[in-house]
């Protein structure tokens, strides 16, 4: 009995954590390449959920198509945001693009409120979960789906970054922009591409969470966005495996913490943030920058 409950909580934590991880990847990839916290990432996530919802409710598309459409929508939005709101400020003081990011975030929230209204929208019933029995443990089919998709996306991202030429260009640009240009890398394209991939992952998280909690609303990005950010900091901002691990740890911490103090569920993430900033500001897998000159 205890084991069954424990296992169910672990599954809840991993499911939630894998969506945090997907969101955290968007923050950490953008930070890695531009040293910018893209606060509009919450709204990129929300947009993914709405695009997915529209595909399912209006166009009656199956889940897989809705997921891809949500990712595509977020991807395009992310690239446009970078072009309009961040690129013109590339050489400005560090605070300027940060303020611009917050502005974009508020703008998109309100644009969504205008278009969709403040009430939450539900996904149709055929998307609800079935329970799968594995001997004496039960897993919801939806949880399994979210876990599998998240893991596949993260493996895909890892291969992209470590096995392809564009991935190599992304890493080079993140380490040293000027020298990357001397290699012939067009860094503006690489930066656009980074926003595209990070935003698509955020959009995927939006669709998955929308389906999981069976709702989408214009403010839905706020808490998951902040928690994704915490997960990125927890893992070490700019560090991709760190974002994945940070997301999972945060998801588990939240679910198990909620067992003892359910009313403080949302506070747990921020307690984690304070602790990590106090005791290990570089994050679990972050490194200090140390270079030979």
């Amino acid at each position, binding site marked *: 009995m205890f084991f069954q409950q424990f296992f169910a909580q672990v599954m809840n934590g991993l499911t939630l954590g894998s969506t945090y991880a997907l969101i955290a990847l968007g923050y950490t990839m953008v930070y890695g390449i531009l040293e910018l916290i893209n606060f509009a990432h919450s709204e990129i996530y929300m947009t993914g959920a709405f695009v997915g919802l529209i595909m399912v409710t209006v166009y009656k598309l199956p889940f897989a198509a809705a997921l891809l459409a949500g990712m595509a929508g977020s991807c395009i939005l992310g690239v446009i945001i970078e072009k309009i709101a961040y690129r013109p400020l590339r050489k400005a003081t560090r605070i300027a693009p940060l303020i611009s990011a917050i502005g974009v975030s508020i703008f998109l929230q309100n644009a969504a409120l205008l278009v969709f209204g403040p009430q939450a929208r539900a996904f149709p019933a055929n998307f609800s979960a079935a329970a799968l029995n594995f001997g004496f443990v039960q897993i919801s089919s939806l949880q399994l789906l979210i876990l599998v998709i998240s893991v596949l996306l993260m493996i895909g991202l890892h291969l992209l970054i470590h096995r392809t030429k564009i991935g*190599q260009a992304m*890493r080079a640009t993140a*380490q040293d922009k*000027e*020298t990357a*240009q001397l*290699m*012939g*890398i067009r860094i503006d394209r690489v930066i656009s591409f980074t926003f595209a991939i990070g935003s698509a992952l955020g959009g995927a998280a939006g669709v998955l969470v929308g389906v999981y909690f069976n709702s989408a609303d214009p403010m839905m990005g706020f808490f998951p966005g902040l928690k994704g950010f915490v997960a990125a900091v927890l893992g070490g901002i700019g560090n991709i495996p760190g974002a994945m691990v940070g997301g999972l740890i945060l998801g588990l911490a939240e679910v198990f913490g909620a067992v003892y103090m359910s009313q403080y569920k949302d506070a747990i993430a921020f307690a984690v943030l304070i602790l990590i900033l106090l005791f290990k500001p570089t994050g679990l897998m972050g490194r200090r920058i140390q270079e030979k000159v």
Partner: protein
Amino acid sequence: MLKLENVVTHYGNIQALKGISLEISRGEIATVIGANGAGKTTTLKAICGLVGVTSGKIFFEEKDITGKPTPDIVSSGIAMVPEGRRIFPRMSVLENLQLGAYLNNDKNDVRKDMERVFELFPILKQRLKQVAGTLSGGEQQMLAIGRALMAKPRLLLLDEPSMGLAPMIVSSIFDIITEINQSGTTILLVEQNAQMALSIAHKGYVLETGRIVMEDTAENLLHNEQVKKAYLGE
């Protein structure tokens, strides 16, 4: 091969280069010597488009490359070994070399070029999988030069290759620079180590606070009293 006409650059309101003109012929080693802050690095950065040119023109093989984006300049046949080496510290030696050949999509060709780099720097072959940030200073400099050669440059720009290296390593690096030049690559070398630079160069320029104050054959500069006093420590 490379010609600068009255090149002026600014950092904010400060004029860094105050009208630099120089000309390098095919097959030469030319050197620009000067003290810290004279504008040596800025000159190289202006050539590869990393620093904007306020006025003046830069021609490479008769084509105007002033104000072109850096990747275009690199693909036209200019590669640079930046000051402080600037290897990608968290990547392997192999990946650093691959990035040097970023614009070359012919894999066999890249492999051949890499073999050529290993002939010049056998140590890099032994260190292939090692993370570049853990190499010694001299090895990092070799990697930086090898990486630049992977782009098959017709003109190689070298910014202070002797910086922070032991004298023995400096002389072996300079031997290799001569070797690269003899196999047909034109070289523009920027150095504070005037003695070393003038000893391998054909032609030299002396840069002082953004202006070229002297130009002559390297041989003549080595024996010039003013140069001796100011840069050769005699």
